[in-house]
């Protein structure tokens, strides 16, 4: 019926992937949610749990640079992938904030802060491919990140500020060759 030699189910193959630039191998079931792997197995609690079905964006992470809801991604889908969580977002040097984080701080782009890691990840993903997004681009990029506290006013000001900071940095970077890091 089925040739077991080529068709064995991958129930017990350890998951090998990279998290924030570090190789990790974990013995987890293939359908285990990435969210649970990050929070419970790796104790990376910056990725938040909220709706469990991909509707709020609190658990947003980057998988190979693209934003994905960690509550929807399963272990087998992360095999060999590079995962970046909020803990892997930082400025050009260790201990320095990423310009997007700096912008959220300055503009008050958060209140309770529970949506903030996911929001920052989505903005990182947006500005990585679009340094000067239009209002429509921003709306599309953030439409999967719910915030209940701010009414998005502070968040939109933070994105605008991050775009400015990005321009300043790009200008400075022409000479220094520095840049923010998300890995």
């Amino acid at each position, binding site marked *: 019926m089925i040739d077991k030699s080529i068709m064995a189910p991958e129930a017990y193959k350890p998951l090998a992937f990279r998290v924030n630039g570090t190789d990790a191998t974990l013995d987890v079931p293939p*359908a285990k949610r990435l969210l649970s792997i990050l929070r419970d197995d790796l104790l990376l*609690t910056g990725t938040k749990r909220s*709706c469990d079905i991909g509707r709020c964006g609190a658990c947003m992470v980057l998988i190979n640079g693209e934003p994905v809801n960690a509550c929807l991604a399963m272990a087998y889908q992360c095999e060999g992938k590079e995962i970046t969580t909020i803990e892997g977002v930082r400025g050009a040097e260790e201990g320095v904030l990423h310009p997007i984080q700096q912008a*959220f701080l300055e503009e008050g782009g958060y209140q309770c802060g529970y949506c903030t890691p996911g929001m920052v990840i989505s903005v990182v993903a947006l500005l990585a491919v679009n340094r000067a997004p239009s209002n429509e681009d921003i709306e599309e990029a953030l439409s999967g990140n719910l915030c*209940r506290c701010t009414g998005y006013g502070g968040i939109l000001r933070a994105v605008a500020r991050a775009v400015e900071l990005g321009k300043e940095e790009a200008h400075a970077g022409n000479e220094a060759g520095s840049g923010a890091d998300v890995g």
Partner: protein
Amino acid sequence: MDSGQERKALRQPRVWRPGGPAEAWMLKHTFGGDGVFISGGTLLRTQWESGGAPVPAHLIDLSGLDGFKGIARAPEHLMIGALTLLATVRNDPLIAAYFPLLTEAVRSIAAPSIRNLGTIGGNVVSTVGDALPALLVYGARLEMYDGAQTRDIAAADWLSEARFRQGTPLLLQRIQLPYELSKESDVPGEDSGPPQPPSAKRFGAFHKIGRREAFTPSIVTAAVTGAWDKEGRIQGLRIAAGGGQTVPHRLTEAEAVLEGKRPEPEALAALYEAVLADYDPCGDVYAGADYRRVTAANLIAASIWREAGGARGGDVMLLNRTASGGRWRIRPDGPGKVTGKLAYLTDMARPDMLVGLVLRSPHPHARIAGIRTEGARRLPGVHAVLTHLDVPGLNGFGIARQDQPVLCADRVRYIGDAVAAVAAESLEIAEQALRLIEVDYEPLAVIDSPAKALAAGAPALHPQGNILHRRYYKRGDMEAAFAACAHIVEETYVTPRQMHTYMETEGGLFVPEQNGRLTVYAPTQHGFMDRLQLSRILAIPETAIRVVSSPIGGSFGGKDELNVQPYGALLAVQTGRPVKLHNSRLESVRAGLKRHPMTLRMKTGIDADGRLLAHEASIVADTGAYATLGAEVLNFTVEHVIGPYRFASVEVEALSVYTNNGMSGEFRGFGGNQAIFALEGQMDRLAERCGMDPWEFRRFNMREKTDPGPLGQPIAQSDGAAQVWRALADSSLWRERQGLSARAAAAGADAPWLRTGVGAAFIMHGGGLGVGIPDPAGGRLRLAADGRIEASFSYEEFGQGLLSALELMLIETFDAAADDIRILIGDTDLVPDSGSSTASRATSMMWKSLRNMRAPFTAAMLEAAGQALDRPPDTLRLGPGGIYDAGTGMAGAAGATAAVHGVHTEPLLGYAELAAAVEKPIRTETSFHFPTTDKTAAVGAHFLYTYSAVAVKVEVNTLTGRVRVVDQFHAVAAGPVINPQGFVGQIEGGGSMALGYALTEEAMMEGGHYLIRNLDTYLIPTVADQRGTVSVLAIEELPDEDTHGPRGIGEVGSVGLAPAIAAAVAQATGIRVSRLPIEPRLLLRRPAFLDKAVSIK
């Protein structure tokens, strides 16, 4: 939904990774119903989590089928592999050039992160995906593998058969999109350059209408394409429509109506009628079939009419970062939040902790005949299974009245009622343990409305009956007053069950300490109240419990009452192990508090001049199964349905009624939201009736400074009402309204179905708990051993910016630097009881505490410094970093100027040196009561009020009935602005909550069950719903004699926008709504272009 099913563990399925379609098909054939094809898995996982579909035993992962990924050009069509990510389709330039409606359609599916997992194939095989109408109008064909061969079939044919098809597995491999080009030479070959986009004569439109602006389930989807011939006739018209659970289909009869015709009014009208006849949508609780049909007809007709014929600005924030200068500060809790380093209480874990879960009733109302826990107890890894027999103290909780069982003994009254609690070594074991608990329920008649609860002979839900609270207030002679009225308006207002939707669901960690005490790490809005309630339940002294209650991922009133704390505490005490609970969103929806749904019947009369004479209100609130603060909310509503207006005669009768619906309780605005929506609706209707400008009508009838409060009680006097009235009258938004006559309210000529209106509302909102209710306040200052000035309050930080406000006040009160300060909050072991972080009271109370402590603390510090320095204290002052010479140093603004000019002063004595030098600790405490009105006033009547006026501009699309908020203006008179960033944030955020309340949010229930289960159907505003400017004007001026300082602003922003939106909708459309959220079907209009001659080019 059965509790066991809802709680089902996500079984761990086996994952098979076939290398080709034959293997995949064979696996599916072998497993039958036990196996499912999976690509991105986004839809499947959502179904599993919501209990909508079981987790299958076998997942057949298609992602290894590399041949079916990506987009490729073939001579006659574009090929899209079924496993191509939606994100790839969204961003593909070829698709955008040739099949722009598909780009548009995919852009409207979920959000970018979902499109990075989900595939176009999954969207298609669901049979209801939003990409389908676009694929249908482009004549897409589907390559299907049936186990033996690959055939292609028109997508339209496949879909029309889909509803009849049973079980035969088919594997979608590719989607073919045929080019439709004007010239043969445009057809791209494999090696040719970029193909030419289709001729400009073609046209097309894609529409997706949901319940909000982005990331929404669809209600109607429609795609239209066609082309104009040289004579302006339509050729090749294709129309497809779907939406929700409707399988999209081509509207061939509607297409035929217009084919080869010019879009004259008669032809468009015929098209419109044909769509109504041809489109066959499924209705559901969110939108009926009729609404969908009319909306589709409107949109499709308008697409063609528009083809034939026919920004957001910078925010102008009056209170903003620029205007705030150095007072716009980075919050102390900010760095931890933007880096994810801040550990919330639900992020905490201990290596030896157990996982706790609660078994909740699957029935809205039932008798418990028996509970058997033996099976669960025997399960390896289970450490405790608790029932009502295991509650050592009071088996009841409730801030005001302890009528909610911790664990139900003989009866359940709502579907969130707790029956048992377990602690186990893993979530999976705990879930299995819940399934093993046997409860014998005997279902009872479900009281699912206040009307049923109040009916004669209704079973009593509680010993005292079904009325939690009755409130009656009357002044004047109602009969005579109504007899004297020239106009009387009677209306019934209905408001929805709104969910707080804090992003962090309820949870926490419960730790039995070695010394026998219990530490509770769980969000709440009054740690000392939780400690009191838990001590009653556990039957241990309050001093044996430490409650750590901050930080919190949002609350809005929803975490004020106990939620998981009793179970975590009982389980931790029972097992002697740390126990963690963290509600799933499903459980949070089911068990958590909501805003009271209310029905408010009002009758209000004016004389011929427009002066208010009489006001009668009758209010019924659905408080759900248990009390919590239902009575207090109702009192607040009674006070606020009278509000800031001068009625000679008033009669209000209000009831808060127990039902078997979900719990209602405390929620930002606290009964004011419902009251003011109804009251302001009356004011607008009366103004219209007597022909007055609605804002002028309010001024004419508004309270004056020395008037008593709404219930006749003395209140702190201010000019707030007049100030906010004037600010709104002068606002550019309100002046814009005057230019929008009903006729001119129509927007540009190319979209006459967009109608614009501006509306306003006037708000007087009480702060504090009100007279007759314990409302303690206070705090402590001390100089810590390390030299920090330590401020301790029992308040909680749930996002409002309390830490930031306190830091700023400390800096300004003592001329200290941020580094000199340490703030302690939210820990009952460390802080004095400052009362609750509710009722917009915490900032006011911190301000007053510091005012009380400033002089004694400063004196004690200078006294000690004087001794250490051997100088008279009155020659010294406090400053950044330490003690300065009072004569030479420059404080505050002068100091800042000095710094600019390079004048550098060092403290004579640093705070750390001072702390080392002092003999007895320097420490000041204050304790007082929130300012209240006269003790003879009605319980809950307020003394301090915040005044606000809100104007809003909306755009109503009469094709769809959907309302879009454009611009907002909020004038707020609340005394001095303590923390500018927090102030703006509270008004913007509160406004967003009111926007949802007005337009999209309702936690619908039927028969005592929630119809909404998660954030896929309960829709709070997204960033796309929040376009436009929000201007906040803070009016800080208070009378010279005022000693109360800043009033609360935490709630007022959430109250006024909904009635202002209703008023704006009325100006735009002439329709006055009396029910929230506003139903789009009420605002649909037949497009005028169907009925009058228009020139078609």
